[in-house]
């Protein structure tokens, strides 16, 4: 007997009400009370989420020897056609419950942290309203019972992200970044929508339970009709993944994420590191059976996109000097890992190792990446700069930040027994079983990751002091407590029995550390750390020498492989100059010109005719009489 999870709808309702309250009455609350309102509401949501997770994993969700998909609530929101209807509801299964925990926890941490970080900012209440909106949307996304509900909340997280990136709306760079983020993801969402269109056309349903049922009609259809060499389902799945790639900032749709760092740092931690950007991973995980059984080509593409993104972003991260941008590229790289891992996964039991590992990594990543960002925020809060060149030797001033940041760096580098080690090990194991080349790429990325993270760590917290405007100091407790909590999470999440909780088919399996993979990966991680130690522990000329050795490569990586420039070329030069302006010109001059031309011709003809209207009575009379005579002749003699 499964437990009634009807109360989970409150997980959605509470943040939404908070959002409404704060947007309508936030102005009256003036600052801190608004923040506390938002935070306490989120506290309730977090409690509910944890309670749900514990109930679910300890028996509430188990039946027939596996975790079941439970539809806790569902109501028709809109009828699209006789067989398609959009529902709003709550679907609980291992991944959605896991995501609930991740989102509510990180969100709560960020809420608390922001009480200190955003203190005194103008628009404090607006900030909390947007955070609540985001939490609502993200929760709605993960508990979606059908792909369309997911799309709806997908768009909503997009807009909350837009609003939060553009929080400092009088800063042109923030405005541009928010616009870019929205448009790029919107472009990807168009793919998502087209994917859904094709999907619903072939399967006649949006419902996840029906879609992912491996004996269900969607999977049994084996892909539907063939269009341009691939089955419709494959097309659909590729398009849907395009949406996921946009949200998760996969190459080549990643360009918005580094710019999105213009938003307040806690927002970057919440949205652009821990939760929203993994929506793409979540989407693929959600649809995984459909991918695996009907569109293996799509899964193959996913694996490559993930691998390329992770490598590519890691290389760029090596060269960046803005602390948040390094973290942003690191995020892309780590999400690439997760996506990749899904791409190489099989289905069911131990074959689904990649699936499990991906979700595990998602979970761990949320913890340590949020920690990194919040730590970076703490540093930025202290030195009022984003640039690594303005930082150094901070370990003396900010002990808590230093230690938690170090833990996070060790975690991401995959040092045992921290959580990152376990999930990364599983991912590499899954990769090794799948494709050696992909494995090699990801193996290299593991080393690069360790290197660039410690490059960051050493140059911020070690080295000697810079000229600070005022002596840096440790952040207030509202900021350090979340850091400590997240650090605990990062350390101990590796001991969760993930393979018994989150699996591709719901049935638990035993996973163990594959030492043949683990030892080399730890080794390359340590090598990276060591290299960073040598190059950045003390300030030496070594980094510059290395950079000049790879001069061309360095410049390309530093300029992010000029992808931004390509986009600017496409948007400014092609879309604005070559399409829109000609269209506007064409409309004004050709289409409208034709209309005006017709008017002009009419007018000139009429001005010709008006000459006949001379006012000369006798001319009229003459015309009249000759006309009558002519008509008389015609009708009497010609027409008989």
């Amino acid at each position, binding site marked *: 007997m499964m437990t009634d999870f009807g109360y989970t709808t409150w997980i959605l309702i509470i943040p939404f009400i908070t959002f409404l309250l704060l947007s309508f009455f936030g102005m009256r609350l003036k600052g801190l009370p608004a923040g506390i309102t938002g935070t306490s509401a989120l506290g309730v949501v977090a409690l509910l989420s944890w309670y749900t997770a514990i109930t679910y994993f300890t028996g509430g969700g188990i039946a027939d020897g596996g975790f079941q998909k439970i539809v806790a609530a569902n109501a028709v929101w809109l009828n699209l056609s006789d067989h398609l209807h959009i529902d709003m509801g709550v679907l609980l299964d291992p991944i959605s419950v896991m995501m609930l925990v991740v989102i509510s926890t990180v969100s709560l941490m960020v809420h608390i942290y922001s009480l200190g970080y955003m203190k005194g900012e103008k628009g404090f209440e607006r900030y909390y309203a947007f955070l609540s909106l985001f939490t609502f949307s993200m929760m709605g996304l993960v508990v979606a019972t059908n792909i369309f509900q997911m799309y709806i909340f997908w768009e909503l997280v997009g807009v909350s992200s837009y609003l939060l990136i553009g929080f400092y709306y009088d800063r042109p760079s923030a405005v541009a970044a928010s616009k870019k983020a929205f448009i790029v993801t919107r472009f990807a969402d168009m793919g998502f929508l087209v994917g859904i269109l094709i999907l619903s056309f072939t399967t006649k349903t949006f419902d996840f339970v029906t879609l992912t049922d491996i004996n269900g009609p969607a999977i049994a259809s084996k892909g539907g009709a063939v269009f341009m060499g691939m089955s419709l389902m494959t097309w659909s799945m590729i398009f849907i993944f395009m949406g996921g790639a946009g949200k998760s900032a996969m190459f080549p749709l990643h360009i918005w994420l580094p710019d999105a760092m213009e938003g307040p740092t806690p927002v970057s931690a919440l949205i652009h590191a821990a939760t929203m950007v993994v929506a793409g991973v979540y989407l693929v995980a959600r649809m995984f059976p459909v991918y695996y059984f009907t569109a293996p080509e799509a899964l193959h593409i996913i694996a490559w996109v993930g691998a390329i993104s992770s490598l590519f972003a890691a290389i760029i991260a090596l060269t960046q000097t803005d602390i948040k941008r390094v973290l942003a590229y690191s995020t892309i790289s780590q999400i690439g890992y997760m996506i990749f891992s899904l791409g190489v996964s099989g289905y069911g039991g131990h074959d689904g190792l990649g699936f499990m590992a991906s979700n595990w990594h998602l979970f761990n990543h949320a913890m340590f990446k949020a920690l990194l960002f919040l730590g970076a925020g703490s540093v930025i809060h202290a030195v009022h700069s984003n640039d690594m060149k303005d930082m150094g030797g901070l370990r003396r001033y900010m002990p808590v930040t230093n230690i938690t940041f170090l833990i996070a760096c060790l975690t991401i580098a995959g040092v045992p027994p921290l959580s990152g080690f376990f999930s990364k090990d599983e991912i590499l194991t899954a990769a090794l079983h799948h494709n050696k080349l992909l494995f090699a790429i990801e193996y290299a990325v593991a080393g690069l990751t360790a290197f660039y993270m410690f490059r960051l760590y050493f140059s911020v917290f070690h080295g000697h002091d810079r000229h600070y405007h005022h002596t840096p100091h440790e952040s207030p407790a509202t900021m350090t407590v979340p850091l400590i909590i997240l650090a605990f999470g990062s350390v101990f999440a590796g001991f969760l029995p993930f393979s018994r909780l989150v699996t591709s088919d719901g049935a638990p399996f035993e996973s163990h550390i594959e030492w043949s993979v683990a030892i080399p990966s730890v080794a390359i991680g340590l090598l990276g750390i060591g290299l960073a130690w040598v190059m950045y522990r003390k300030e030496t000329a070594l980094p510059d020498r290395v950079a000049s050795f790879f001069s061309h490569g360095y410049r390309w990586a530093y300029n992010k492989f000029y992808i931004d420039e390509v986009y600017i070329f496409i948007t400014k030069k092609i879309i604005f100059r070559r399409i829109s302006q000609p269209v506007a010109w064409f409309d004004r001059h050709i289409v409208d010109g034709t209309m005006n031309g017709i008017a002009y011709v009419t007018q000139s003809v009429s001005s010709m005719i*008006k000459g006949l*209207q*001379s*006012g*000369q*009575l*006798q001319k009229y*009379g*003459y015309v009249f*009489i000759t006309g009558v005579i002519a008509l008389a002749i015609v009708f009497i003699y010609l027409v008989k």
Partner: protein
Amino acid sequence: MNSGIPLEFYLVLATVMFFTGVYGFLTRRNLITMLMSVELILNSVNINFMAFNRYLFPGKLEGHFFSLFVIAVAAAEAAVAIAIIINIYRRFTTINVEDVNQMKY
């Protein structure tokens, strides 16, 4: 009794009169003479009516009365027209039709 004069004679005479009137209407530049041409035209029509009545429907009076009414209308028309002409003369100090062309366009 009228055997000596066929109906066609009247009709042809009226036609000639009519088109003389038309010619006058088209060529005269003085408004009063144009009015006189119109009177000619009306008159020719009256002749037709009377002749038709007498020759074709001798027992009836339609043509007769129609002519009578035409004469009445002609009288009214002449009165109004002359009033207008006098007014035009006051305003433009001419009754030349070609100079009175303010109504064009």
